């Protein structure tokens, strides 16, 4: 496990971002994390547009996507990723507060790789995020063309 995948987090709530980063940090996974604060920014990042125009054109190893987002919501981001030839292979994990069946149905129909409900309990939340980070950024082999960092 010498390679660490880049994690793109799409989350509008700064507290959730902080908690997620804290959780990832416990496993030293926080280094290669990119935070985007709404759906538009996430798509800008993925398409290397505007403020991300100069970044190296590599896909993240995994996207942790919230569903309720300003501007462009999670479902639409997911849909755009899945309909883009270059982006559609990126693993996407929905990390949301929603227990709703219709959200699960809609995201799975759009081809999400995993659906995780954010636990209220902090321990569970930390564990969930840690395991997600472990699996997607370390254990899983991302599709070719993803950003990797030799640690």
């Amino acid at each position, binding site marked *: 496990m010498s390679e660490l995948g880049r994690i793109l987090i799409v989350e509008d709530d700064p507290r*959730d971002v902080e*908690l997620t980063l*804290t959780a990832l940090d416990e496993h030293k996974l926080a280094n290669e994390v990119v935070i985007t604060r709404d759906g538009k920014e996430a798509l800008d990042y993925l398409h290397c547009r505007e403020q991300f125009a100069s970044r190296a054109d590599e896909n993240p190893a995994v996207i942790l996507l919230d*569903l*309720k987002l300003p501007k462009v919501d999670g479902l639409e981001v997911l849909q755009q990723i899945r309909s883009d030839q270059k982006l559609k292979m990126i693993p996407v994990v929905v990390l949301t507060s929603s227990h*709703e069946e219709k959200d699960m149905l809609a995201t799975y129909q759009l081809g999400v790789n995993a659906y995780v409900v954010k636990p*209220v309990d902090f321990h569970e939340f930390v564990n969930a995020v840690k395991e997600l980070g472990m699996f997607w950024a370390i254990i899983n082999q991302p599709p070719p063309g993803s950003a990797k960092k030799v640690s």
Partner: protein
Amino acid sequence: MAYWDNEFQRVRSPPLRYGFAVVCVGIAIAAALAIQQYQFRDVALPVLVLVIGIVTWYAGTGPAVVAVLLGTAAFNYMFVEPLYTFYVSARDLPYFLVFVLSAIIVASFSAVRLRIEENLRHSRDRLQTELEQRQRREAEIRKLNQELNLRAAELAAANRELEAFAYSVSHDLRAPLRHIVGYSELLQKHTPNSLDDKSQRYIQTIRESGKRMGNLIDDLLAFSRIGRTESRTTAVDLQKVVKEAISEIEPQTKGQDISWKIDALPVCYGDRSLLKLVVVNLLSNAVKFSGSRRPAKIEIGSVDANGDKIEIFVRDNGVGFDMQYVNKLFGVFQRLHRADEFEGTGIGLATVQRIVHRHGGMVRAEGAVDQGATFYFSLPKAEHPAKRTANAP
């Protein structure tokens, strides 16, 4: 028809009707006499018969009798030999009798015809009023239907609103809660030494309350979801469901001395996952409230309720409840015990009731303080599906 009606209506009062008869006979005789002047023979008989017919038609039976009598007398007096006497010679008797007979026949035919016509008119009027009533009723039904449709639309809108509400609770209420719990834990971790025992306890309480509220929200959402999800109805083997439920609540039963008694349970008809939720809730309650018993005795069985329903019961020897509060048992957020006695959100039995009602069954409970409780729920029997599964290879 309307013309006849009008004609008939015009001669309603008795003096007019009888007068009409007399006048008609008079006119007939005058006409017959006038025609005779022109050397036509034997006109009186048909003219009088005709007039008698007309009188019966327009004025009814009484005037017809008068017309027949008057006509007979006048005919006898003026047209039967010897003229101008009421004497009838033997030779003219058949002629005279034929007149009287035909007059009577015409009169009676007309009378019968009149009666029939009147009956017809009556029935027609009755039909008319019935038709009107029916139309009125139809209009009423249509109006009620419209109101019903409106209500249905309103209900659907209210339901959508509720759904949106539940959705937003699910999304928006949990996030701040997560932050409260998360940050108080971070605080606890961050300053383990600078906080005294009291502060530590305060933070602990914040965390526990947050967690409790999280459980409440989750349970409430699950409860509201029961009404919204579509149920998938199949034949359900309750025996298996109970076994699964017992293994599901194992974390709760660990360390408890429980003697289970599970009778033979029938196959019933319903949504498997929902019915399992019912059993899990009831068993978990039984385990929870008999926690102080050594051993705790929990019995699951069925009684054949009347008709096409079966009744399942879960009995425990736990702390029981006062029958006085039995009505509160199945309400949302209703609890009969203090939070520090037994944990719980007060939604379990409400969920049970909601699911069982959705299946067309009933719930009830019996119990006494410190003498255990028995919870019953009834479900529709699965006769046909059971047969089908039994026959399947």
